[in-house]
Every structure is written in structure tokens, then in C-alpha cells.
């Protein structure tokens, strides 16, 4: 993954980010730095704004205020500040991979077609060039034999692995994961988490919104706890997950601690 860093060395730098829908403020001043190769896991109760925050990073949501830097691009948001749009916005997003809860594969394309879609449509790459890249990625996520299948013929776990390969095909500088195992049957969660662990081990920069605390503990360099649109605690995974300083973090984590313990043992 070749990439550029922000002037201060961070891959992503968010400062005072806010997002409101009408009178409801979903994200209320979040700041975060992600270094290259770092895995940041964002946890918190449902509706705490963690998904909205993630969607602000590739501008699927337009932040209402704050600043955002990804690689060498930086933006300022607020009244009178211009949002990027059209091709400029699309270019910016193409450098950030994102995987969603519901997979959102393209049903009219084969598995291979899905993985090639970014390179072919966005990068205007020749098919002969895109296909080997896509096949390599499908092999990497363990689906080398599924290239000619259609998404509907695959299990949820397989579909999600295709979605990861599709995002990786753009050779993004950073990967965003938005509760990617939440829609899966429990027995299919592991295969997706394994792929993500492999990516982390390969040095991929990742921001992961998840409820999988064991995964967070095993893979995260840095854990961010959000509640009611704000960061209530952040720090190294062990510190935040096992010895939380904040009372709300502690109560949120209480019901997960057994799982973390199991994995650790």
C-alpha cells in the first residue's frame, strides 16, 4: 500500500468533527489520529454515532463542522465552507476502502466482476490488468474457486469477504469497516474476522467499528470508546478494554469481559 501521509505524519487526522441531522447531533466533536499501519477500533453502544463518524471519513456523510485530513487531502467543514463534489469527491473516496454491514455487493455482477468493478469503472483499468489483481485478492480471502458465482449464491460470510476484496482492489490507503459482522450468522463471523486479522498483520491501516470485543482486543493498536456522539475514552487496546478509567466505558464493557478473557486465556 503506497500512500502519502499528512504533514504531521498521521494517515488520518480528525479534529472537532461534528455531524448533525436537523436538530439531532449524531457526532459531537470527535478528534482522532490514525498512524500508517495502525488498527483503530471504535466501540460504543448502538446509536452512539460511531457509524456516522466512520461515514464522515470518506464523506459518505457531510460533516457539519470540524476538519478532516486523509493522506495529503484536508478539508474544513462548516457554514460557508465548500464540500468537494463530483469527480473530485469521487477521486477522494476512491483512495479509501469501505466495507458495510449489509455487504452491498452488486447482484448483477459475478464475484470476479464485483472485485474488478472499482478498477474497471473508476480507474478505467484494462480488464486484462484488473483480472489478475482481482483473482489474487479473491485467493487472499479464500474464495479463489468462487469467481464465476453470483453474490446470491454465496453465504453471508463469503459475500462479506468478497466485499472486502472489492474494496481492496482499489488499493486504498486506508480501510474502513462498519460493523461488518453484525449481519452474519454467528458461525460465519470467524471467517470474516480472520481475513481482517490477516489484513492487520499485513500492515493495512484500518478503522474498525465493531461489537466484537475479542477481535478488538486481539487486533487493535488503539481503541476509541464513543457514547452519545463523543469520545469518552481512548488509548491502547489493553488499557481501555481491560482497565477502563471511565465509568461508562467500564459498564459498557462489563458484559463483554468474559469474551475477552476467554480469548486471552
Amino acid at each position, binding site marked *: 500500500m503506497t500512500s502519502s501521509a499528512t504533514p504531521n505524519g498521521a494517515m488520518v487526522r480528525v479534529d472537532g468533527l461534528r455531524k448533525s441531522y436537523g436538530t439531532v447531533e449524531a457526532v459531537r466533536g470527535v478528534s482522532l489520529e490514525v498512524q500508517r499501519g495502525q488498527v483503530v477500533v471504535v466501540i460504543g453502544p448502538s446509536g452512539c454515532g460511531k457509524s456516522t463518524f466512520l461515514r464522515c471519513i470518506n464523506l459518505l456523510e457531510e460533516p457539519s463542522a470540524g476538519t478532516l485530513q486523509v493522506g495529503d487531502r484536508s478539508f474544513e467543514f462548516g457554514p460557508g465552507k465548500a464540500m468537494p463534489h463530483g469527480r473530485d469527491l*469521487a477521486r477522494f473516496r*476512491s483512495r479509501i476502502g469501505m466495507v458495510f454491514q449489509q455487504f452491498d455487493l452488486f447482484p448483477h455482477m459475478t464475484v470476479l466482476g464485483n472485485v474488478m468493478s472499482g478498477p474497471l469503472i*473508476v480507474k478505467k483499468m484494462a480488464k486484462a490488468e484488473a483480472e489478475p489483481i482481482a483473482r489474487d485478492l479473491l485467493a487472499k480471502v479464500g474464495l479463489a474457486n468462487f469467481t464465476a458465482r453470483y453474490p446470491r449464491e454465496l453465504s453471508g460470510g463469503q459475500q462479506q469477504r468478497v466485499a472486502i476484496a472489492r474494496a481492496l482492489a482499489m488499493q486504498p490507503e486506508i480501510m474502513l469497516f462498519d460493523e461488518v459482522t453484525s449481519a452474519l450468522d454467528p458461525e460465519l463471523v470467524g471467517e470474516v474476522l480472520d481475513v481482517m486479522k490477516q489484513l492487520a498483520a499485513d500492515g493495512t491501516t484500518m478503522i474498525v467499528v465493531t461489537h466484537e470485543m475479542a477481535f478488538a482486543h486481539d487486533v487493535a493498536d488503539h481503541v476509541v470508546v464513543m457514547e452519545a456522539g463523543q469520545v469518552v475514552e481512548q488509548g491502547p487496546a489493553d488499557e481501555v478494554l481491560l482497565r477502563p478509567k471511565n465509568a461508562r466505558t467500564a459498564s459498557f464493557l462489563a458484559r463483554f469481559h468474559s469474551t475477552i478473557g476467554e480469548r486471552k486465556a
Partner: protein
Amino acid sequence: MFVLAAYSWDFSLVPNYLNFWLKGLGVTLAYSVGTILGGMIIGVVCGMLLLARTKWVTLPVHYYVEIFRCTPLLVQIVWFYFALPIVLQIELPDWFAAGLGLTLYMGAFATEIFRGGIISIDKGQWQASRALGMTWPELMQNIILPQAIKRMIPPFVNQSIIQLKNTSLLYVVAIPDLMYTGSIIVSDTFRPLEVYTVVAVSYFVILYPLTLYAARLEARVDQ
């Protein structure tokens, strides 16, 4: 019952007018194809406009659709044929003025079909395309339309079948379609029952295979 039983059917005169029949059939098919194609173009353009975020664009289109959906087609045909040239102070060729109402009527329904097809596509498809870095034209062309068009085809074929039948209303403005041709032959032969039976059978023979085809299409799309 006595009267019906006593009527002696006589179709022997019908073949004498074969040329008329074929011309009438040609006119019906020409108006069908023409107004369906015209309506389709209007539907694509207006359907796209309905996707716009500004009220100034969507509102006029919305009113256009509602006006044509909420007035009888017969009234529309008559109005465009007789009133429009006076309102606009221009002379329109008869064949054009006659088809205008039909075309705009088809356009109104096609607009709804197009819009319905687009908005039926899951939001996830839009966000996944955007996240990959596709621009609006790129995601429309490659992701949304290929899926939406499949869903638009069955309602569009159904509307086209209705449209072909609706061309018979051109009778009122003396366009020599199948129906009007029938009325001419009736005045020549005084055999209305036979002639209108032939008219009805002609429409059925054209449309029945089309409805079968539409049903098959629907089954395929449902898969």
C-alpha cells in the same frame, strides 16, 4: 334472444376490404410504436429529473404526470387535436396533433415506471458505488441502471399493451386506424357486427402473444 338467434352472420364481405384492413392495421401499429417510443423518451428524461434534489425541477414534472394521469385519455386526445393549435396559434399537422395526447399520456406513465425502477434499488448499492469512488454517471450507468431497467421492463410492457389498445381512441379525430377503418367499412357494408368482430379479433391476435411474452418476462425478472 329471438333476434340474436335470427341474425345470420355473413363475413363474406370482409375480405373485399383487405387493403383497408391492412392500412388500418399499419396505422394502429405506427401510432403504437411512435407514441410508445416518444413516451419512453419523455419517461427517461422526466424520470431522471424527478431524481433531482430541487423542488423547482421535480415539481413541474410531478404536475405533468398528475395532470395526464388524472384526466381521461379521450379528453386529452380531443384537447390536443382541437384546442392546442388554437392556444398556441400554430398549425400542427393532423397526424401529429392526434398523436400528441397519446404520447404525453404514455410519457406520464413511463416517467412513473422509470422513477419507480430507480428508487426500488437498495440504498446500499448507491453507497457501495460511491465508496468505491464512482461518480454519479459512472454509478448510474454501471450499477443502478442495469438493475433498475430489469425491473422497469414488465410494467413498461404492460403499459405498452394498454397503449396499443388506447390508439383505438384516435377514432374520434378521424385517424384511419383499425377502429376507424372498421367504421368506414361498416358504412359501406352495413355489417357492423361482422366488421367490429373482425376489429376485436385483430386487436386480440396482436396483443395476446404480447401478454404471454410479458408474463414470461415478469417470471424471469422475479428470479
